[in-house]
């Protein structure tokens, strides 16, 4: 068994708390019952059974009744909403804070626009139309006008140009457990030509973050521990994050022109309509839904609308063995973990009609596997949107509505659109149902979902084949050694293309210098060989030169993203505080997913298969319809697994240290007979004459072996070391707690060493360098010869290609 220090890990996570479905105002001890339980559980045997505790409804803090009219020509929505909010805090509340997300697209000085950087080239070239939302009236229930009390709030950065959060002062504070209702009227305009989620494109409207939406009034916490202070958690709209809201009920009526009849989808159930207007020019649809924390809709007159139902009984991808295993792991019957039917509506672009089955397969697989592992999808419907070409919508998640996207040309072994569909559906569980604060802990939804997505993708769709793109078309290829892009100053080939020639060198009287120092002529772009896909393809992969196929599991893609820059930031921080978007992406997606995958393997290896499934299931069930923080998950993980994980979480989540173990020394030499003077005094027995050089060549004889496994990184984890000797059937296994800087072991007079391997089961996928995890004593040059030869061939073809230009 491994040695684990009993000191540091005995500390459970102090901030563990229950979800919002529990009554507020409990005492600290009562509100953190997990603490005592977690501490006891560390010493107690594992739970044999998780009680079936899938919550069936949220605490419904808010309710929205919205009526909105779309004007496609003006690209505007005019709406009014009646919002009722219940005060769950222990004291009175005198104001309401609303998000006005669309104001992020009002100008290029908003916080979102500043964070995402200057307009890109396409945005500069194309027609731009800014988006905004204007609150025209706010009235209290008794009709009192509250508009004059509105003030813009900038809690995150103080940016005076940001108008994405407002505060409305109430005439009378809302008492604890009391409610307030306000009526809001507004007009919103959708942006076009900007990289925005909530945008319009040739008649397509994606109604997301489109209405004044309340923030969350909650107790502020530090490292999960309640501070006793209650405040509105209502962040500005940031480039990388946007979600945090209370669960509630939505009752939304949309009035749209007749052109959109039958082409509208939304969060919730369609309860009325489409009801045509008297003049026949428009129609009304009404959607209602409980226990969601947002409402989104889509209207696309051009899309094909398809409908199909997911039936868990007849689903062709059903896996009886896995169902049996999950039931056994959870200590429940299969009936108790049975899934429910889901009616799925798919809005598909006409040119993607041939990919319909791929969409159904991916969505149904996601419904099945997420439901089986974490608990059934609780809603009756789901809307899947394939946005039109040229929109920047991409893959996004909203309650009961997801967007994905695909290309006209796709290849079978590239998991597009499957990957994004599974991922966005997965957000129904991690964001939709377990609704953590995405502004402050994006990894809790993105990371958990990336982890879950990887498991579904690897299980259902298998390895993905590497591709490059040419002419907006994926082609199976993987260059061993890409060229530098021309014009970067290091690439002499750029001389061939004029891309690197600075025209100032020729003293041309041109003044129109672009910011990066290159000069552009009006009407002519002189940097020809900027990455044109066709030319790039020809350049990096001369026609038909050998390209090795490269298939990768999702976990490998995750590693690739993580290990390129593992130390830029701690994993957990506010989404806009990461050093850059890459770091946000790594720490919100790849790194937490790899952390969870690693913990899964670690915990299962020590506590038995299925333990981690119980952890994830319990966490999901306990916080379904809740707002967990990281410490809630840590507590569940310790409680359910019985493992002390505190120190590990501290390093992996709140630190930026790297995990890397590797074999440093693996040597085995034929044992030499002792030489020198042995025994007391200088007259002791002399043996040096018996040592002979030939001893070292006796491969079959006794050998002295030395193995050193090094901890190169700062993260300390227990690891397994395998040592394989020649003519010994099974490798020896050693457990090392990984704390010291190295593990050194010597064998004298044993068989010859064959190889050494650290972490043979690849438990720690976070290991930053897997290539040093094993080492053999006798080198085998054949793989290098084979791949070196192929690389040489590739280089020869490249040179042949350029020789032909000369």
């Amino acid at each position, binding site marked *: 068994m491994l040695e684990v220090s009993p000191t540091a890990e005995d500390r459970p996570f102090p901030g563990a708390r229950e979800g919002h479905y529990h009554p507020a105002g409990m005492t600290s001890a009562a509100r953190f019952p997990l603490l005592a339980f977690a501490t006891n559980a560390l010493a107690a045997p594992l739970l044999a059974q998780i009680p079936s505790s899938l919550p069936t409804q949220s605490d419904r803090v808010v309710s929205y009744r919205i009526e909105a009219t779309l004007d496609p020509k003006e690209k505007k929505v005019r709406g009014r909403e009646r919002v009722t909010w219940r005060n769950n805090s222990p004291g009175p509340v005198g104001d309401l804070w609303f998000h006005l997300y669309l104001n992020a697209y009002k100008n290029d000085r908003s916080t979102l626009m500043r964070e995402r950087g200057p307009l890109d080239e396409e945005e500069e070239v194309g027609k731009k139309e800014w988006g905004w939302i204007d609150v025209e009236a706010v009235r209290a229930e008794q009709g009192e006008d509250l508009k004059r009390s509105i003030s813009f709030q900038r809690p995150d950065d103080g940016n005076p140009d940001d108008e994405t959060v407002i505060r409305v002062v109430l005439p009378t504070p809302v008492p604890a457990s009391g409610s307030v209702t306000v009526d809001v009227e507004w007009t919103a305009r959708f942006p076009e030509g900007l990289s925005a989620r909530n945008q319009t494109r040739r008649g397509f409207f994606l109604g997301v973050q489109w209405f004044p939406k309340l923030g969350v009034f909650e107790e502020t916490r530090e490292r999960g521990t309640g501070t006793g202070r209650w405040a509105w958690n209502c962040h500005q709209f940031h480039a990388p994050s946007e979600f945090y809201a209370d669960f509630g009920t939505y009752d939304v009526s949309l009035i749209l022109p007749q052109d959109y009849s039958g082409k509208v989808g939304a969060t919730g159930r369609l309860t009325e309509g489409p009801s045509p207007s008297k003049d026949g020019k428009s129609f009304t649809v009404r959607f209602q839904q409980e226990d969601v924390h947002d409402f989104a809709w889509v209207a696309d007159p051009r899309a094909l609308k398809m409908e199909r139902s997911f039936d868990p009984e007849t689903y062709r991808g059903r896996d009886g063995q896995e169902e049996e295993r999950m039931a056994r792991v959870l200590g429940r019957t299969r009936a108790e973990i049975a899934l429910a039917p889901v009616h799925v509506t798919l809005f598909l672009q006409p040119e993607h009609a041939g990919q319909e089955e791929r969409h159904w397969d991916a969505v149904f697989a996601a419904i099945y596997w997420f439901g089986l592992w974490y608990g059934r999808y609780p809603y009756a419907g789901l809307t899947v949107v394939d946005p039109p070409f040229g929109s920047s919508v991409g893959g996004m998640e909203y309650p009961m509505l997801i967007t994905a996207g695909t290309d006209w040309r796709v290849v079978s072994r590239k998991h597009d659109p499957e990957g994004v569909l599974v991922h966005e559906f997965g957000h129904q569980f991690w964001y939709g149902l377990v609704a953590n604060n995405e502004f402050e802990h994006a990894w809790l939804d993105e990371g958990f979902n990336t982890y879950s997505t990887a498991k579904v993708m690897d299980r259902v769709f298998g390895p993905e084949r590497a591709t490059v793109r040419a002419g907006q078309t994926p082609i199976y290829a993987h260059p061993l050694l890409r060229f530098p892009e021309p014009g970067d100053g290091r690439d002499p080939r750029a001389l061939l293309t004029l891309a690197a020639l600075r025209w100032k060198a020729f003293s041309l009287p041109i003044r129109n210098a672009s910011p990066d120092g290159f000069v552009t002529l009006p009407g002519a772009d002189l940097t020809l060989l900027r990455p044109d896909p066709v030319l790039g393809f020809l350049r990096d992969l001369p026609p038909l030169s050998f390209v090795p196929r490269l298939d990768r599991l999702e976990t490998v893609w995750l590693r690739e993203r993580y290990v390129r820059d593992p130390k830029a930031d701690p994993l957990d921080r506010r989404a806009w505080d990461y050093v850059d978007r890459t770091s946000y992406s790594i720490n919100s997606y790849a790194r937490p997913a790899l952390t969870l995958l690693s913990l899964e393997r670690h915990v299962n290896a020590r506590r038995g298969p299925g333990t981690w499934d119980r952890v994830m299931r319990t966490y999901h069930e306990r916080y379904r319809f809740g707002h967990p923080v990281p410490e809630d998950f840590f507590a569940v993980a310790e409680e359910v697994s019985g493992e002390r994980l505190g120190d590990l979480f501290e390093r992996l989540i709140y630190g930026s240290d790297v995990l890397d173990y590797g074999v440093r020394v693996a040597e085995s030499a034929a044992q030499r007979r002792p030489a020198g003077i042995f025994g007391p005094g200088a007259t002791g027995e002399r043996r040096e004459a018996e040592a002979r050089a030939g001893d070292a060549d006796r491969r079959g004889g006794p050998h002295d072996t030395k193995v050193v496994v090094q901890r190169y990184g700062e993260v300390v984890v227990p690891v397994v070391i395998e040592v394989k000797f020649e003519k010994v059937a099974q490798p020896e296994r050693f457990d090392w707690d990984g704390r010291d800087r190295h593990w050194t072991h010597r064998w004298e007079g044993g068989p010859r060493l064959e190889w050494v391997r650290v972490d043979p089961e690849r438990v720690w996928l976070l290991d930053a360098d897997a290539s040093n995890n094993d080492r053999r004593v006798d080198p085998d040059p054949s793989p290098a010869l084979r791949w070196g030869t192929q690389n040489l061939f590739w280089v020869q073809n490249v040179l042949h290609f350029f020789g032909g230009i*000369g």
Partner: protein
Amino acid sequence: MGGALRDAVGGLARAFGRTRILWLVFLLNFVPALAVGIPFAGALDRSMGLRRDAPDLVAEYGGDFDLDFRLRNAPLLEGLRGSLSVLAFVSFLLGAFVAGGWIGVFHEPKGTGSVQAFFRWGGRQWARFLRVSALTLVAVHVVGVFTHGKGWELLLDLASGVRKIEDLPDGKTAVLAEWWRGAAYVLLLAFLFTAADYARISIVEADRRSALLAWLHGIAFVARHPLRTGLLLGFYNLAEGLLLAAATLLLRTGSEHVRGGFGALGLFLLMQATILGRVGLRGARYAGELAVYRSSQAEAAPLQAPVLATRLAGV
């Protein structure tokens, strides 16, 4: 059609008959490639040679391995990328020399082609051929402006009323537009590079000193004989495509079973044979194009006395 095929086959016979030149040009490709190939193989050996699962790595260049290899050898690979770029430029320069050598050898009366003649012609025409290449690249640039720059935007605007491909109504139209643009681009490049070949041939045949005039002559020639020149080019491209496809198939299927040093040697020889084939096909293209050029000139006017023989007599 028959004439083009005859020229093409004749070109093959002439190029592959010059075995010493073939080997020489092959070496001009092989030796520079070693500057990248050897360090790359060394890095692979350091990463693979002591791997416990080395035999498995022979069969599959795996995802995890690829990632760790690239990360662990990032500075080296960055250096090799730069080296490859430099070598590409050197190959470009050598290409002009090789073209001069091949065309000169084929220009000479049958049977007189030798390695010395190859060097002599390569050196003699190198500067002129480089000027032709430079002109061709300027033309490639201009073509690029029309296919990927402002010209494209204007064309798109005329055709569809939008200036960005992202503003086209749907993805299918956009991809088709990309393909048409790509096809037009590749065809125009083929036209320009073929014209450059005939410009070089005209330099050798007529001992032209002006690269610009020769280049214009080459453009005019290909424009006058699009079918014959196009068919010849198509034949050689097809032959090269088939060669590469066959080689790729053999390499992929065969290499998975490679384990020892002999297997690797077999792979190496197969790959080098493929490169030798490509080198020969390029030489054959010059020979075929020379034949097309001469026969076209003969059709246009009685054959003039070979300029070269008289001029070279004094060399």
